[in-house]
């Protein structure tokens, strides 16, 4: 009874576009177009370009969101917020803040452990920055495309807490110590529901590759994983709550509770080192928003089938059109993520801060059991659907949602006709057979390369 479902799941999970990805990879392009460069040189150049681009999308959103935070906070509190810097709307406020912070003296308390005190802001920034390396900004636009992209991104982001805890400890101040302890306790417990809810889209999609997870959400907003089943719908909200906590945003900002702990873990910091913590915080806000969009809310798809299909059709036209459609996809993704960040800011200035015991209760007594239940629900959903309707999901089956499939099907159909008689005997139902043929062609290419 299980085997057809297993076969279906496997065929869903093994959707593969990596061949095209490798052909389009920056390293491959540099290596083939600039013959004087050696393999190492091309690799280095590609790495520098990737890092610069990712750094841009790490720094600029943080820059914008610091301004947005002030502006939104002002409006919510019936003020205007910054109005004058940079002409109108105070849009250069972040730059003014930055210039002010650069001018400040870089202090370290005498009692502090100087090495750890100085190094911990860099750990925080490096962790938040590195997490962006694994995020696809548009279809195939990712610095390091990995099969386990989601897992490794979460693993790298979890290093951020280490820098904060070290900062709290190395400051040798009571306020900082309290802040660091709260952060450690909070993060260690909130990683459990974060991991479980992040696994839910993985269970549905059958892959941890973020690019593939978004690919199967094409073709209309009803294909987004948040609407896949009621459990996934609730899981999105749990995920969002947990990411608020993991970014120590209000109402979970106990690590830096200004009214109780002066500044928490960053009490003793000043100047650029202080600003690094905030750069990392806003970048991490943006990161988890992007992650939520990619996992649950359709990534770079608009959700309107006509527009999405037009984008896909255009991208098959030529390289320039493909590039344009990718840029549009990136704009869609960034807009959606910006809206999520706006919601985070909105929540921060609306809800009061929880007490530390309430934070722990929320996590351990409510979020962990809820996320476990949702996980079980998502796992059993295909069986439920299968027994009731004969299909494993609403609407389009996951394996058929891939937008490029039309093109690939044509290719594989023609190649099937060539090799048809020999390979035909192992095919089963039409979906699985075409997918298998698809994989077989890839495999043959792999084999030939070896």
């Amino acid at each position: 009874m299980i085997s057809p479902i297993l076969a279906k799941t496997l065929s869903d999970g093994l959707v593969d576009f990596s061949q095209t990805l490798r052909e389009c990879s920056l390293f491959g392009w540099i290596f083939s177009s600039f013959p004087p460069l050696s393999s190492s040189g091309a690799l280095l150049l590609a790495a520098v370009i990737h890092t610069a681009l990712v750094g841009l999308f790490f720094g600029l959103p943080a820059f914008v969101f610091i301004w947005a935070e002030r502006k939104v906070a002002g409006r919510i509190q019936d003020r205007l917020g910054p109005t004058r810097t940079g002409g109108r709307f105070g849009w250069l406020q972040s730059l003014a803040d930055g210039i002010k912070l650069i001018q400040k003296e870089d202090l370290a308390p005498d009692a502090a452990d100087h090495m750890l005190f100085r190094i911990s802001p860099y750990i925080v920034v490096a962790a938040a920055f590195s997490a962006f390396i694994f995020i696809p900004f548009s279809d195939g636009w990712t610095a390091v495309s990995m099969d386990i992209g989601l897992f490794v991104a979460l693993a790298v982001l979890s290093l951020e807490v280490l820098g904060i805890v070290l900062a709290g400890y190395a400051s040798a101040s009571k306020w900082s110590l309290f802040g660091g302890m709260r952060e450690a306790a909070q993060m260690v417990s909130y990683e459990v529901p974060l991991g479980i809810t992040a696994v839910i889209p993985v269970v549905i999609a059958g892959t941890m590759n973020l690019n593939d997870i978004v690919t199967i959400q094409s073709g209309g907003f009803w294909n987004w994983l948040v609407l896949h089943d009621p459990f996934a719908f609730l899981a999105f909200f749990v995920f969002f709550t947990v990411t608020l906590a993991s970014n120590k945003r209000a109402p979970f900002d106990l690590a830096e509770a200004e009214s109780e702990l002066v500044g928490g873990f960053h009490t003793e910091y000043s100047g650029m080192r202080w600003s690094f913590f905030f750069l990392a915080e806003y970048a991490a806000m943006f990161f988890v928003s992007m992650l939520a969009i990619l996992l649950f809310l359709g990534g770079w798809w608009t959700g309107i089938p006509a527009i999405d299909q037009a984008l896909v059709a255009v991208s098959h036209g030529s390289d320039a059109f493909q590039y344009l459609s990718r840029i549009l996809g990136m704009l869609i993704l960034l807009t959606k993520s910006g809206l999520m960040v706006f919601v985070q800011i909105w929540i921060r200035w609306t809800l009061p801060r929880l007490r530390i015991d309430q934070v722990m209760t929320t996590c351990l007594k409510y979020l962990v059991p809820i996320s476990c239940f949702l996980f079980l629900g998502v796992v059993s959903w295909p069986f439920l659907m299968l027994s009731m309707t004969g299909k494993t999901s609403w609407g389009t089956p996951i394996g058929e949602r891939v937008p490029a499939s039309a093109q690939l099907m044509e290719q594989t159909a023609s190649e099937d006709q060539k090799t048809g008689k020999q390979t035909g005997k192992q095919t089963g139902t039409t979906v699985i057979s075409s997918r298998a043929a698809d994989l077989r062609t890839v495999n043959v290419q792999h084999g030939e390369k070896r």
Partner: protein
Amino acid sequence: MHWFLFVFYALFACGGALAVVLSQNIVRMAFYLVVSLGATAALFFLLDADFVGATQLLIYVGGTVVLLIFGVMLTSSSPLSSIKNTPAEILQGAVVGLAFLTLLISTVLSVKWATVPEMAAHTGVAGPGVSASQGFNPVQEGNTSRSIGSALLGLRFDRDLAQPGSSVEMSNDPVSAPGSDEQLPVEHSHSAQRSAASESLSTGYLLPFEIISVHLLVVLIGASYLARAKRSEMASPASVGPASR
């Protein structure tokens, strides 16, 4: 490039480990441990064992070391406490450490490194310099997660298909190159061939995994029970209201 990166991270791993031993301050030790473990994770990534590397980062660097520092924060009496070792402790540590080092060195020396690529190619496991014969991603994107996941459930594509019982239909398949074990998991799990193949399937690691996880849960509940009992005992004579909830 590969060689340079290997030396770079290996130096960090060894230097971090040495610094852990030589440092006196506990939190600095924890930091050097982070350096060492992080560099080890990077070495895993270099070996295309991406899943193991990410797990190393998540569990050891992001989890265990944070808990370690958390424990130090909760328990240390003075800020930035350091530990002083007695000579006996140093001797004990040295004996245990040297014993493990001997074990490791003897293990490394007992492997015939010349035959490793051949063996890796035979079993379908990717090794350094050997392209994987399974999985559909380029090696640098990692293709270990599906192999690990299916092995957990008992589907060993690398091994099962190499056995004579299961590869009767596969053997005259023109797609597979002679001598290689690469086959399609989709075909393999297909119901028509499943009956023939199911006899030779290995049992998988799911049961041991579940047993270990239940074991850990028991330990966790036991630990929280012990901690709880102590607290209520201490709180009861003082009869503090909010503490004994």
